[in-house]
């Protein structure tokens, strides 16, 4: 298993963003669904080693990120796209991707090919020499994806990767996720259930810091059977049914 999580919590002051999550994931595309404030981004940030957990056990790629050496080894094999990608406006696309390839300690001799391949895979070949300040929001998102995959990561964490992409780009991106998921564990946090249906082999649904469903997209669809859950698509109805059930047990506002 590339991701092994047991009893993981993460607090920010008095707020508990992640409240005792158990999760394991091997190669494949893993979708993380949930409403705003469910704790998805905090989960991804912990898995990206950006913030430490408050308690619980976390193993990534068979290593404990609590120690300096293992954490560095994990980070060499990690790709991360934050929800809000910060970028240096004066960098070109190629310079930006190259900078993070070097910080990920991709061997220098391999960097040029790795950078060019990542840029081609995200369809930015024609923009490789464009300054980041000249790009649209969708293109910047693809630049973020390019830096995330430049080291051919074994664990790829993507927070709202399709936000800002047009339908055609979204279809291409789902194909890219499936490719990556053949060898790596890809964890995608998204609001778009179409992404889950099209690309994910497994899905977890978070609500109030907890995982309230974990299974395949087909199993999520089946949760809507016999309910009057709202939604325009089968996955949306499954999503609504699971959330409604979780909220009825906690008494939370729907």
């Amino acid at each position, binding site marked *: 298993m590339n991701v092994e999580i047991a009893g993981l919590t993460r607090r920010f002051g008095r707020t508990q963003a992640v409240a005792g999550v158990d999760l394991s994931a091997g190669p494949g595309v893993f979708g993380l669904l949930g409403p705003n404030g469910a704790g998805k981004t905090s989960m991804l*940030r912990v898995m*990206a*080693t*950006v*913030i*430490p*957990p*408050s*308690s*619980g*056990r*976390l*193993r990534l790629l068979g290593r*404990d*990120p*609590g*120690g*300096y050496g293992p*954490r*560095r*080894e994990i*980070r*060499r094999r*990690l790709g*991360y796209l*934050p929800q*809000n*990608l*910060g*970028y*240096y406006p*004066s*960098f070109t696309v*190629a*310079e930006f991707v*190259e*900078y*993070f390839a*070097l*910080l*990920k*300690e991709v061997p*220098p001799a391999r*960097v*040029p*090919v790795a*950078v*060019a*391949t*990542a*840029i*081609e*895979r995200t369809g930015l*070949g024609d923009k*490789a*020499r464009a300054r980041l300040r000249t790009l649209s929001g969708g293109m910047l998102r693809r630049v973020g994806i390019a*830096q995330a995959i430049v080291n051919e990561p074994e664990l790829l964490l993507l927070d709202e990767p399709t936000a800002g992409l047009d339908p055609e780009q979204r279809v291409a991106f789902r*194909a890219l996720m*499936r*490719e990556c998921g053949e060898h790596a564990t890809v964890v995608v946090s998204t609001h778009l259930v179409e992404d889950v249906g099209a690309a994910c082999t497994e899905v977890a649904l978070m609500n109030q810091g907890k995982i309230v469903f974990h299974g395949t997209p087909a199993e999520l669809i089946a949760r809507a059977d016999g309910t009057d859950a709202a939604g325009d698509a089968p996955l949306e109805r499954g999503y609504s049914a699971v959330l409604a059930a979780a909220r009825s047990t906690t008494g939370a506002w729907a």
Partner: protein
Amino acid sequence: MNAFEARLETELLKVVRERGAARAQTWARRPGLVERASGRLLRSPGLARALVTTPSLLLPWLIASAVVLGAGAGATLDTGRPLVALLAPAVAAAGIAYAYGPGIDPAWELSRSMAVSDQMVLLVRALGVFAVDAALGLAASAASGTAVGITFGWLVPMTAACALALAAATVARSANAGVAAGLAGWTIMVLSSQVADGRFTAAISNSALILPYLAFAAVCCVIALHATRAPRGTS
């Protein structure tokens, strides 16, 4: 996805990789002399790149430093007072505070997930800022005809002011707090030295202050390192 589509995707990926390999030659950037030398010295091409890109990431600071020190050189020529020597530590402290951190570095969150630690990136950026400011300050001092003792006398106080700004910025996680601490610290030092010694330039010309400056800088560096250490967390 059926077998045909899967094969198609694999073939497409192969084409993309081949195209990437071909394009790599076109896009490849040859590191300059400074970057290659820094890479060997720091034993990390990533840190070397972070070092040489620092001035371009902090362009407003670079321009402000050049303007302030240039004006200081002009004023020194006019008044005969070593204003460059007194301005350089404050300018460098402000630059150091803005070298890195949440709210300042746009890619800070991404940097936190990199194999080369953000603490090391912070240190090389601080070094880059310090080196550029030292070079600008020396040039301004030389241009204004300041005495050699004063020209070099401000380098140690500048180290202390920079270390204070860095420590305050990293502890408070605020560049503005770092700037405020650096400027306030240096102003207090200049004024209190003047009161104690009676000379306007006492803060930069009194050799008895060198050791206290260095000790203070060392303490501030330890604080900055502690504040930026990677959290161990629970696992």
